[in-house]
């Protein structure tokens, strides 16, 4: 297969990359564009460390061909912060100690961000389900759920 041009937005900026059509979105984000905040922890679409948002939906970037993102808007963990101001869920993670080694954190934040933007008075079960696809080996998840809860209860405002 011939290489193709992919034009898309990442974290608000336009990018143009010349890629093999089989290239995964995770590879383009990390290896071509250098957004290494997005991690990878498996080969089986199981761990969620590579989760990003595509047009507002959380997606595991190892399960998507980059070329499918033609003209779309991708947000990675690097895109959550605006001009040095952290997003509500990022601040809630800090306050609740919702990370330890930090390797799953970018993916967790992206899953949580997509959930929070849609959720209306979610239950604790729904909060837990929102990060069901993300494995964390350190925290035991409860501190992450507490952070999501705090944001959905309006305890953190956009700065």
């Amino acid at each position, binding site marked *: 297969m011939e290489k193709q041009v992919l034009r898309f937005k990442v974290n608000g900026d336009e990018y143009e990359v010349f890629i093999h059509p089989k290239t995964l979105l995770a590879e383009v984000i990390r290896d071509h564009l250098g957004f290494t905040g997005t991690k990878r922890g498996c080969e089986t679409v199981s761990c969620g460390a590579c989760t990003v948002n595509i047009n507002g939906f959380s997606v595991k970037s190892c399960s998507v061909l980059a070329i499918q993102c033609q003209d779309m808007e991708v947000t990675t963990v690097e895109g959550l912060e605006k001009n040095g101001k952290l997003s509500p869920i990022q601040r809630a*993670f800090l306050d609740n100690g919702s990370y330890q080694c930090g390797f799953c954190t970018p993916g967790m934040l992206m899953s949580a961000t997509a959930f929070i933007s849609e959720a209306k008075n979610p239950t604790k079960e729904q909060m837990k389900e929102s990060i069901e696809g993300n494995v964390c080996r350190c925290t035991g998840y409860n501190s992450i759920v507490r952070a999501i809860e705090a944001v959905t209860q309006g305890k953190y405002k956009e700065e």
Partner: protein
Amino acid sequence: MSHAKYSVINTHVHNIDGVAKVTGRATYTFDVKLPGMLYGKILRSPHPHAKIINIDTTRAMELPGVKIVVTGKDTLGIKQGIWRRYEELCDEQVLPLEKVRYIGEPVAAVAAVTEEIAEAALDLIDVEWEVLPAVYEPLEAIKKEAPTIHEGVERNVNVTRHIEWGDVDEAFEDADYIREDWFKCSGQAHMCMETRAAVSSFTPEGKLTVWASTQSAYYTQGLLAGVLGLREGDVRVLAPYVGGGFGGKFELDAAMFCSAVMSMKLFKPVKVVFTREEDFIASKRRTPMFYYVRTGIKKDGTFCARESRMFSNGGAYTGMGATALYLSGFFHSFPYKWRGYRYDGYRVYTNTLPSTSMRGFGAPQAMFCSEQQIDWICADLGLDPFEVRRKNGHTEGYEVPGQAFIASCGLEQCINEIEKWVKSKGKLPANRGIGISSCGFMSGGIFNWFDSPYSFSSAVVTINVDGTVELHVGCQDIGQGSNTTMAIIAAETLGVKVEDIRVHSGDTAHCPADLGAWGSRQTLMAGNAVKMACEDAKKQLLEFAYAEMGINIVYDLDIKDRWVHIVARPERGLPYGELVKKALRAKDGQRIMGRGYYTPHRKGMISPAYSYMMQAVDAEVDPETGKIKIHEVMTAHDCGQPINQLGLIGQLEGAASMALGYAYLEDMPFEDGKMMNPNLVDYKVIKAPEMPEAGIIEIDTYEPEGPYGAKEAGEGLTNPTAAALGNAIYNAMGIQMKELPITPERVLKALREKKEVQK
């Protein structure tokens, strides 16, 4: 002890690496990219036991883009192991010369311009094998007729360990009741989110720099220097952010070794990252153990004697397994007073994935057996499990004969709190039960099998002219938050704020040597070193303050919240920043520098201090499917003085999730030496929906050996959970679970057997 006297310790402090971690700025070895870097891949053995007759790399070398292919013949062939002091336990050539001993063992390595080319080249390496008979279970491998896995090792017994105190036989004679049971404890994968990874860069002046995902930069430096024939000082190890360790990342691994060997031949940086499958099949696991436990007790519940024999599946090599063998036997006695105690542990080589240390270090297995058997004995004799544990439990001032001295112990309060909690739950619905389990754990090991000539922990603190502080430590932050804990201790000691401290760690070129993150050692050992270094620096500042303030020498001076003052008259003083500026001038411009270290002395055989805890697990069994639902976990926990409040909660919740996984989900089935589920689809870890609430009741004690009274937290809590779940199921269903993990199949089998007996 009053906590109010501290201004930083045990307050709500954000992790100092937090912003880096929540914004994606934190870079791990996995993210390291150097100019001209090559990518390495490892060819692994498909056989559990086979002689390497020949390896032909010609075809692989011809593939465009391939820069090098190495085998054992391209190395010094040194047998290495982390028990460096004991030659016979250094039994592993990372690229073996003569034979392989497990499926997944490295055989050759390739470096190429891309990862894809390196991967493709693996298929072009031709290996001629002579397949040998293999053995997979310790109780088989120990038989006379079993194949020999390591030449000269009789009956495949790798290490033995005998622990004994008191007159065991006489103590058994005094017992009114004796019970014996066999248990089978499984392995567990560390499953760090960041798989094993290393980037090595060797340059023409003969210096090697290695970025590694490691729990101890110093161990990695020493081990690499040893196998590569370099001086330790010529190897610089950088451990930037590390994506988890859990006891699996402080030995030499194939990512480190193969990347270094290839870089030394090419003078180019080489990166090796394990796939998740490689991480499962070829990085050592928690040690599977067979336990025989015999316990003698008086009618009134007084413990007399215990005798245990343990056979562990060591897999193909020693690694840290030798330590797990000892600690399992020691903690199997915990947290109780035995008049007579005897443990005989046998670590047996098999042709399976080697086993090693993992969070809890042999104690989760030991407690699964001990704490369940105690509940069964209580049921047999009609005794109260809380009362029996209280009656026999460790107390402050107790000496484990010849082994350990217990200077602080909150076990009784832990038991009282959990008893209250369990009773408050009242009567539970059918098929639901609460189980309890207590235990203790060490705060760092006293042993020095690595043969380190350095202090166990060291710290250097430097105060800049503006009052900011550079803290250099060798302890390793692997996500447990040790950098934050050290910053808190430094800020408290110097009397400044956490944001004044910059912690430098994970770099052997700039940080003092330290044994690293294992055995729950850092808070106590590195914490003491940091405290000493800061006290040293503070003393220099205060000496100058005495002269500057012109006060009576009988007054005590101190610094708190950046205010230097007379203790008895806190309003009299001067700002810390001002003092630092003046003190520097008085020292001819030299920055204030303090040094500290810690090496345990006269603290027994195991550890300087012990944490204590009791846990309760509330669980429900579906009698139709055997499925388990965990409703809640509650722990009463004595870690001395908590230092890092958020970090402590996180560590304890995290321990509960990992230990629950071990108890009922995580299984590593092997068939003919091959792991059957080496991926995250089939290897089940706890995910958010299964995770129950896991509350903590902190018990207030003060450990005299720890910095500000602190001791272990976070590792020990992996110990009680499997037993507590087993006891919950026993209380709910009346079945005894003697094998881990407690899967639905095993529950159903036990329920069927119970029915058979009742017929």
